[in-house]
């Protein structure tokens, strides 16, 4: 996941990859390892990780926007600055 361009949202598959290092491919809801064997995983845990990450990112975003506001700046000002 790369948040360098600003919009940093994790998708469910990324959360599954993060929690299950042996999984290399996911087709729909079915996951496979490097040998193409099906791998069982905890879907609820993955969803919780997704929610946690996105909430964390939202908090960080709000914090950043608050800091900008104290400086008299907006997100649009930053975009104009960074191009």
């Amino acid at each position, binding site marked *: *996941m*790369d948040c360098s*361009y*600003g919009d940093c949202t994790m*998708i469910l*598959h990324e959360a599954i*990859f993060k929690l299950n290092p042996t999984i290399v*491919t996911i*087709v729909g809801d079915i996951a496979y390892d490097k040998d193409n064997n099906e791998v069982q995983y905890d879907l609820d845990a993955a969803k919780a990780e997704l929610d946690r990450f996105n909430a964390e990112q939202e908090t960080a975003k709000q914090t950043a926007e608050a800091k900008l506001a104290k400086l008299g700046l907006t997100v649009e000002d930053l975009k104009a600055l960074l191009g």
Partner: protein
Amino acid sequence: MTQANNVAIESSQINSSGVLQVAGGGTGLSTVGTSGYFLQSNGSTLQYTAVAGVSPGGSNTYVQYNNSGAFGGSANFVFNGTQVGILNSSPSYSLQVGSATADTRSVFWPNSAYAIGVGNGASGFAGWIGGSGTADNMVFSSSGGSERMRIDSSGNLGIGTSSPNQRVDALGYVQARGTTSSYFGYILYDTTNSRIHGTIQYVPGSTPAMQIGTNVAGTGIGFYTGNSGTQIQIDSSGNLQLYGGSILNNSGRAMLKQTGGTLQVVSAYSTTTVSTTNTYSGAVSTTITATITPSNTSSKILIQASVECYGNNATGANLAIFRNGTNLTAGGQNFLTRSYPLNSQLAINVPVLYIDSPASTSAQTYTIYLWSTASGASATTGQDNTQQWIVLTEIAQ
């Protein structure tokens, strides 16, 4: 002379012409006697003698014939004054042979070509029915004797020809006459299977139609020209094929083999989200796939697809078109590599276009494959379960 009421004439007085001369210049007999009698000599005198053996034979209307020196008559040959009956004692027509219950075939044995002639109602001759010498043909004529129809010794019927070489052989048009409400035409009957194999028919009514068809499952209709084989084929599934120097198979509804023309189109879509952290060696199917069976080895296949891609970790996704599991791009390279929007984690719909030449008429499966540009980073298609499609178009060459 003679006693009273009798006449005696010497035989020398009867002349050679048989005229009875009466002596003394008389003018003849004043009384000739009772009906049914005749004058007969008994060796010395002439006497009235009862007539014997002159009564007609058989019943009324029986035609008389010589029956061992006597008149004979039979119910097998009658004439009632206007009608003749042969083997029929009560004819209903001018000439009637036989009855409805008896085998009364007649034999005409003329030494000329025809046996039964029919007048034209005036002074001429309408036609005849007869044989044709030793060929054992039956010939039917009209117009005063011109042959019109023949059944030869093989049973072939010729109309307008004296040498039929098929079961029915007609010189000129053959017309099937119908009505305004009933089908009419020709039936092709399969005797082996006791079924109508096909028809050439006209269907009247409010939506009239000329139809050429087959009633047998699995049977198509072919149109031929010269000796070049099938030119147009409608197979048993209703697929139409036009042949233009090469043979097309039947995988399309209408297969017009015209260079650049579309022969068939196959499409499919997928809404499955697929992610992988594999690099090229572990490329995975996006489940965006479709199969087409080219009708000709020279055909081109145009692959069009729209894939929703999602890249990650500043690397992104790679896409490629695989045919039957093999990357179409030379050297096994990616068809589409990462692009700027992928790096920004924005899902985009990526158009995929490619022209392939499979050179085969076997089924070809085209699939969009996905892999990550960096090991450990994930690449995704169909992130939002949106519809991603693939269209395969066969183009004639």
